[in-house]
């Protein structure tokens, strides 16, 4: 299997960056189908429901894009840290704390004019998320504590901290449930309903809001930062070969801290979508696994914004279509889609080289034949 040697320079870019990921994705989805079958439902019917749920009607499609927004943030978060060879699996906790940042800024500064309070709230989300990532980053670079364990622990700690705050400190005292009061309506981010009239369609409610544009802007921001700035170069150098980077005068400590803080900040932006855009209050457990999904999104998108956008969209389809499936099929719960994420991480991350040599050598041979003919 590993005997196949392929001259990497002869492999066309679209084979390694499009064909191979698509093959891996197909494998993951095939195994997912098997699980759906084991759970006692028909996988083909499930696929039909997913497609109908995510594209079949305008409200469903708006939900798909709303989920896409969240996955762009968490996917970018994982990707940025990964370029420095850091496994930030704490997106969940960073998003949770980021939500706290949005809420605190928005509720305390709601007297300010609207675009300013939005900008400050976005900044608050980024800052709080970054701060929550700072401690694991510091411990990784100074004390060698593995960032995977510390970020996971910080997810647990964030969850405890937020429950404590929601129960004892910032709870809406008129309610029993652990959530805060709602933000004043003037500062809510405009949702898709407001624009739907212009597009000639009418929908009752959609969680899709202006944050979607922020997510698109973040894609450009990350692309520029990682590939077009000196800092991005340094960070990738540290990730690629720390020893060589040190000889080149690049500080690993500084780059680890910056990479993790930007990563945490991007995860924190999820709070903008959820709190300023959709629920307008902090509810217990609002990151609901989006942080973990970001890992699958980033690995499927090969850690590049151009790949993350379609990967996030695909997960948007899976989530929105998935909720249609859980509604129609009693044996399928949303956890089935957590398992699907695991499979996608397995096949497009850990097992990405499973069929790569075969596929690449197949295309190289075919192209050679065309040249010779």
């Amino acid at each position: 299997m590993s005997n196949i040697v392929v001259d990497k320079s002869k492999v066309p870019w679209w084979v390694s960056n499009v064909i191979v990921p698509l093959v891996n994705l197909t494998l993951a989805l095939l195994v997912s189908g098997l699980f759906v079958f084991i759970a006692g439902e028909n996988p083909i019917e499930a696929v039909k429901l997913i497609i109908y749920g995510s594209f079949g009607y305008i409200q469903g499609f708006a939900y798909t894009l709303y989920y896409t927004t969240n996955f762009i943030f968490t996917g970018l978060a994982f990707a940025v840290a990964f370029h420095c060879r850091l496994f930030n699996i704490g997106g969940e906790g960073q998003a949770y704390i980021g939500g706290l940042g949005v809420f605190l800024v928005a509720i305390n500064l709601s007297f300010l004019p609207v675009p300013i309070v939005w900008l400050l709230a976005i900044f608050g989300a980024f800052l709080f998320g970054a701060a929550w990532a700072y401690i694991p980053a510091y411990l990784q670079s100074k004390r060698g504590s593995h960032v995977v364990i510390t970020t996971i622990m910080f997810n647990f700690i964030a969850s405890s901290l937020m429950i404590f705050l929601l129960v004892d400190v910032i709870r809406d005292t008129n309610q029993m449930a652990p959530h805060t009061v709602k933000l004043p309506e003037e500062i809510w981010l405009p949702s898709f309903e407001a624009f739907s009239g212009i597009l000639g369609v009418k929908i009752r409610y959609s969680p899709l809001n202006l944050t979607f544009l922020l997510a698109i802007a973040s894609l450009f921001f990350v692309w520029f930062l990682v590939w077009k700035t000196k800092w991005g170069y340094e960070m990738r150098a540290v990730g690629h070969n720390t020893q060589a980077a040190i000889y080149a005068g690049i500080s690993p400590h500084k780059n680890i801290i910056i990479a993790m803080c930007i990563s945490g900040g991007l995860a924190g932006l999820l709070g903008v979508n959820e709190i300023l855009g959709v629920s307008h209050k902090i509810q217990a457990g609002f990151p609901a696994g989006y942080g973990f999904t970001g890992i699958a999104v980033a690995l499927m998108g090969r850690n590049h914004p151009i790949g993350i956008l379609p990967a996030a969209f695909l997960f948007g389809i899976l989530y929105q279509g998935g909720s249609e499936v859980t509604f129609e099929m009693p044996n399928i719960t949303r956890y089935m889609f957590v398992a699907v994420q695991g499979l996608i991480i397995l096949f497009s991350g850990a097992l990405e080289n499973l069929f790569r040599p075969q596929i690449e050598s197949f295309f190289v041979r075919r192209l050679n034949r065309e040249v010779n003919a």
Partner: protein
Amino acid sequence: MEFLSDIASLINSTLRISTPLVFAAMAGIFAERSGVIDFSLEGKMLMAAFVAAVGSYYLGNPWLGLLLAIIVCVCLSMLHGFASVTHKGDQVVSCVAINILIIGLTTALAAAWFGQAGLTPTLNEDQRFLEIHLPFADALRDIPVIGTLYSDILSGHYVFVYLAYLSVPLVFWIVFKTSFGLRLRAVGENPSAVDTAGINVFTMRYKALAINGVLIAFAGAHLSTAVNANFFREMSAGRGYLALAAMIFGKWHPKTALIACLLFGFTDALQIRLQGVELPAIGEIPVQLIQALPYILTVVLLAGFVGKAIAPNAIGQPYIKER
């Protein structure tokens, strides 16, 4: 006297709570000593809990449930090996994939087979492990000190508790006193030297992962067929990561890892006792803070004391045989 029995029950629960951590840390030692990172202890423990609970529910015997759990966990370890040893994929990514896959799969299948809540049915006395009362435990209870030690601390545990503490010297013996252990450690330190000596690096790593799968299965079965009588969603609650932290804190050594596991177990036993208790001068500690204590302790241990933990030299690197 009240005080003494308090201490005894605290030690008793420390021993019980540390049990899955000890199994997981021992499992981790095998994988990591051979040079394979294993963050997937968490997922494997959860899977073992699920399989053991479902297995003993249908087969009516907890030992058969345990056997099934062992088989499934070894398969998961082999999957990790297939991705990260054979195909040289990223070891951490492989672990994260397994963990997320298992969180989803166990709950989804429990919900599909047994109803929406993601619980497995409660096991009756024949289907689960029961506490073992050592001989003469009742007769000796009234003797001061020895009675407390024997009847209240040593007696009355599940079989897994005894097995866990017996596994520690066994693991020590295998890893440090046998030729298999020497090869295992060499593969993790300098695989190319081992290869030169004519030992297959890949086979060694697969063997280490197989033992890892067997050990972690005990941890999961302990959770779902001994201390609890069913499986519930995400019941491993980060124990796999705690065990890994204990192993790193113990410098990949069974004895020191055991001490770290007991420390975690003690913190957890203490947190259960502290809930709702008014402390002098501080007042009542918020329950969320107490619940977060093991996680905070993990971070503190990793950050404060480890300093330069010397990991096996070749850890995390796939071995590439030169052509």
